[in-house]
């Protein structure tokens, strides 16, 4: 059982509130460093973002310092990407993230805190280009 129930309550109070928007331009050099890092040399990725590149454009989840009072470390539980339009070099992308759910589960090795977040990515025309959903776990 958790000894810090107030962390859950404080995090739950954030549900639905959008975090500060983060606006970044997609640069060829950064895209190249990313594709080199994942080891994907498909030529289209010289000018277009490969499937997971958006996570490198903006923090993938809102900074939640209070969550770090719970447990001793973070785990990534999963991610879901949805694509509406391609993202290309030169595009200006704005990411807005929000916490959509927070809950505790007890497992064999103690209790876990689950934080579900969603990030929506918009292009310079204000159209949604992609959505990301993630499960961040404190253990």
């Amino acid at each position, binding site marked *: 059982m958790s000894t810090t129930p107030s962390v859950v309550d404080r995090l739950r109070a954030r549900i639905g509130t959008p975090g500060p928007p983060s606006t970044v331009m997609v640069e060829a050099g*950064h895209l190249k*460093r*990313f594709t*080199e*890092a*994942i*080891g*994907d040399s*498909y030529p*289209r990725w010289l000018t277009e973002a*490969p*499937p*997971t590149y958006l*996570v*490198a454009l903006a*923090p*993938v989840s809102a900074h939640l310092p209070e969550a770090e009072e719970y447990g*001793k*470390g*973070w*785990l*990534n*539980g*999963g*991610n*879901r*990407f*949805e*694509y509406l339009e391609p993202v290309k070099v030169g595009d200006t992308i704005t990411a807005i993230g929000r916490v959509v759910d927070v809950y505790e589960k007890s497992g064999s090795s103690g209790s876990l805190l689950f934080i579900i977040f969603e990030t929506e990515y918009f292009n310079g025309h204000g159209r949604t280009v992609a959505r990301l*959903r993630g499960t961040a776990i404190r253990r």
Partner: protein
Amino acid sequence: MILQPGDELPDLIKHPTTRQLVQYAGAQGDFYEIHYDQEYARGVGLPGVILHGLLKAAFLGQLVTDWLGERGTLKSFEVSYRGVDVPGRPYRCRGRVTSVTGGHAELEIWGEDPDGNRTTVGTAVVEITA
């Protein structure tokens, strides 16, 4: 492209190294110590530094886009991380078509460690245009 349920994607085998984890940490901007500091990683109960979940997601994204090429578009994909993976061990990405409806196909995708454990499992939806 004619697709049928059961069609398998060509395997993609990755050989992650500690160097790649540092490269990826820098490129994504994820500087959580469990991906490059052995002592820190062991201190939080891990076997040592581990692969970023999102790096494994990138591998599975590549599995699908390498197979798809210019014949279609990836519409969505989702993955669950079921186990940790350490650098120095090959990571085998696999997938197969589970259903085909109109111009869309759904895939089952997963990543296996050398013991055959599916440490990442997921699905993807692609739109076939050619």
